[in-house]
Structure formats: C-alpha cells, structure tokens
C-alpha cells in the first residue's frame, strides 16, 4: 500500500513539477547560448566599446539566468508544500483521509515523493549550471578555460581533501532538509487541519512559529560552533585542546535535526490519526 501511495503522490507532484523541469531545461539552453556569446566575446578581438557592451549584456544575462535557476529550487519547494496543503487540508483531503491507509504511511509516502522531486529539481538546476558553464568553456579561449578549470579543480580538491569537514556538512545538510520537511508538514497539519477558520493563515503562522522556535534551538549550537572557529579552532580538524570543533558542532546539529525529525514525525502522525478535522 505504501508503494501505491508513493506512486500516486509522485504522479500528483509530477503534474506540477514537470513543467518546472521543462522551464529549467529551457533556461539552460538560453543560458548556454548566452554563455557561448559571453565566452566568444571575452576571448575575441572586437572593438573595445562593443566588446564591453557585449560582455556586460551577456554576463548580466547569464548571471540572471543562473539566479533564476537557483530560484527554481524555491519554486519547487513552494509547489510541493502547496500540493501537500491541498491534499491534506482542502477538498482533496476528503479523499486523502478516507483512504484505508495508516497516517504514518500517508505522511511517509508524501515525504518520499517530495524528497525525490527535490533531489531531481536540485540535480536539474546543477546540470543546467554545468551546461551554462560549458558554453563559456567552449568559446572562452585557453586563458578563460584555464581560469574556469582552476576554480573547478580547487572546488573539488577542497571537497575531497577535507572529508572531516565535508562529511559532517553533508550529514548536516541532509538531516536539516529532512527535518525542515517534517517541521513544515507538522506545522501545516497542526495549523490548518486542527483549527476551524482561516486555515491557510493558521498554517503559514504555524510554519513560521515552529521555524522560529527550531532555529532558536539550533542557533545555540551554531553560536557555539562559530565561537570556536573565531577563537582559532581552525575548522576544528584536530581536537587536541578539547575545543568544540566545527565537525563536532555539525554532528551535534545533525543529531538535533534527527531528534526533531522524530518529534515532528510522531506529532504529524498523531494529528493525522487523532485530531484532524476536515470540516
């Protein structure tokens, strides 16, 4: 039954998100063409003023497209949560809550489909950025290619040569993303499905209130981490002095994320099973 729920949630999200992916693809093509011109202009021997104008316009265009691609991730997140709100609170909730499935499976399937769509969206945006960069790479001439290659190499070296930082950072990002999803789920259910009137307002209010509370808790650990860095813990790769190191802070925050995820999961399931009022 879980797989069937997942299948239908996946399809339901795809109706909204496939057009966004097509938009990302279109932006990538546009950005690629723009980047080809940018690269060619940068390495070409055109007149000074024309070159400057072309560089300015193509650089601005490429930068705007790259930023729009980043914004697409926010659009995907918002669409996922609007879809979730509709299926759990509005008319569609009449179907959702009369299906013969447990509340845990219901929420779990929604989480899985939302998580996969988020990963797909992020991968699509990353791929689009690579496509745009490749445009500069192709026409940019050897000097520019060398510079882009150097930046890329530095980036990968930083990742591969510092696993003691990168692994906890990855764990923190992953647990944080999962926690945020369940946090918003719980807030929507609590704010919208339990109250009677102004459900959308209640949902948004609860999302903000819970977010504020959680971030306050997490910032306590964050401040401690930042303090250790400022005081010279040098990313805290070594713990000789017993200081609170950056990796340690990240692991602690990851642990808090896991704990909060469990709390929000339990609370969401409880609301969906016992307290939801679809009036």
């Amino acid at each position, binding site marked *: 039954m879980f797989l069937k729920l997942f299948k239908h949630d996946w399809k339901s999200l795809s*109706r909204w998100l496939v057009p966004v992916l097509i938009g990302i693809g279109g932006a990538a093509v546009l950005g690629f063409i723009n980047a080809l011109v940018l690269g060619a202009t940068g390495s070409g021997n055109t007149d000074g003023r024309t070159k400057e104008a072309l560089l300015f316009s193509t650089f601005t265009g490429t930068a705007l497209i790259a930023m729009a691609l980043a914004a697409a991730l926010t659009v995907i997140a918002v669409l996922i949560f609007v879809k979730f709100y509709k299926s759990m609170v509005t008319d*569609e*909730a*009449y179907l959702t809550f009369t299906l*013969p499935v*447990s509340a845990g499976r219901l929420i779990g399937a929604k989480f899985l489909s939302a998580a996969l769509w988020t990963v797909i969206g992020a991968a699509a945006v990353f791929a689009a950025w690579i496509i745009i960069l490749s445009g500069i790479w192709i026409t940019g001439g050897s000097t520019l290619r060398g510079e882009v290659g150097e930046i890329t190499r530095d980036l990968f070296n930083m990742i591969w040569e510092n696993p003691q930082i990168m692994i906890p950072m990855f764990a923190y990002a992953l647990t944080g993303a999962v926690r945020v999803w369940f946090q918003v789920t719980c807030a929507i259910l609590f704010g919208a499905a339990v109250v009677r009137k102004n459900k959308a307002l209640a949902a948004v209010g609860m999302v903000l209130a819970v977010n504020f509370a959680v971030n306050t808790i997490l910032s306590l650990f964050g401040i401690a981490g930042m303090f250790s860095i400022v005081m010279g813990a040098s990313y805290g790769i070594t713990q000789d002095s017993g200081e609170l190191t950056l990796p340690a802070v990240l692991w602690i925050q990851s642990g808090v994320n896991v704990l909060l995820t469990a709390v929000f999961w339990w609370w969401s399931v409880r609301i969906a099973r016992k307290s939801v009022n679809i009036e």
Partner: protein
Amino acid sequence: MQYDNIAGSAPLTVPAVGCYGLTKTYGAAPALSELSVELPAGKIIGLLGPNGSGKTTLIKILAGLLRPTAGDVRIYGKTPSEETKAEVSYLPERMYFDPGMKVEECVVLFRDFYRDFDETRARSMLSVLGVPTDRKLKTLSKGTREKVQLVLVMARRAKLYLLDEPIGGVDPAARDFILSTIVAAHNPGATVLVSTHLIRDVEPVLDGFVFLSGGRAVMSGEAEKVRNESGKSLDELFREVFRCF
C-alpha cells in the same frame, strides 16, 4: 433519547451504524447533541433534515474525517478506522479529486486502494455515460465530474455507502440519474445512508429514514410503515415535524 431502530425491533444482527450519545461541537456550537440511533444493514436510509441539522457532521464522523467530541460511534460494530474505511464508500458533497487528474487516473486510484472496487463495472458505467477517460477532470463539465465521482463511489462493493447531498444543486434529470444509479449500482445487502433535504425526490428509493434537527434524531422508522400508519408521505411528515421547530 432512546435508541430508535428502523426495523422496529431489537436488531438480530450488528447494526450497520450505531451512534450512542454522539456529540460533536464546533467551538461552543453543537452540531450533534447526544445523538443515539441504530441503522440496520441492507437498507437505503434517508438522513433527512434542514440545513445545519447535523447531517454532514454525522456522515463525516462515520467516514473518519471528524472525531466526535463525546459518545461512541460504530460501523458494523467497529469504531471508524482504517478497517472501516476499507468497507465504507463515501461520496462527499464536493469534488475530492485533483482537477488535474484524468478520469483514467481516478479509476486507477480507486483500483489501487479499494479491494472492493469493481473496475469493470465502473468502466462500463463511464462508457454508458459517454465519459472520455483520457480527459482531465478540469476539462469536463461540473455535472460530468460529479457523475465520475458518483460512478466510482458506487462501483465499490462496499458494506456501507455514505452519500452526502448527492442530489443537491443538480437539475431534475441529473437527480433521476443519480438516484437510479444509487439504487441499481449499490452492493446488494449493503446499507446506503443518503443525506438530503430534498425529500420529495429521494423518498421513492428510501427503505427507512432519520429526521435530524439540531443534532438530534427527532423521528426515525421504516418509510413504508410510517406512510401507512400516518397516511402521509415522508415529505408531508417532514414539513409537519419541522414546522414545530
């Protein structure tokens, strides 16, 4: 209030629906007030009452969408749960499908989640109605969308059908279609609970009735028996009973 039994005597089998002191309040306002009634299995029963009498609230509690404030509710002896949801076919008074879904996807959804769903019968009914299954719901007329939902709900071999205002807001021809579909398509032996305030239209198909007012059952019984004893139709009786309130 004492339990009313539509069959007129103590049930030999477990009632399809049993409400015992059922109360539901929205804030301070009671929608159901210590409602106690038992509905027998295998009958088409009208849940009749004016607007705001608690019909929809009762149906939502039975469907598992609302939780009672107090009292107990049973469906074939079981409290509303995943188990009863598998046996209850619920038609709300609004569209509950995503308008972006195709009719085909709605059929597949019912097939995936309801073991008692008779897909062949659903497809046959949709075909008779000329509903194109490859069209999205939002491209169909309101009437056709409602028919799709009704067909899917009635194509289940459920033990209890909960139909909330199925003929409200539709033209007389559509009412005839809906009522004939309910009578012809429901699982034989199952209970059908139809909530409406359009009593004249629904009366010919009813075996029993419950008059609700202010969240309480003010009268209930077998339709034929009451008609014979009072010499009045349910519609006339309804007007008479509710004139007092």
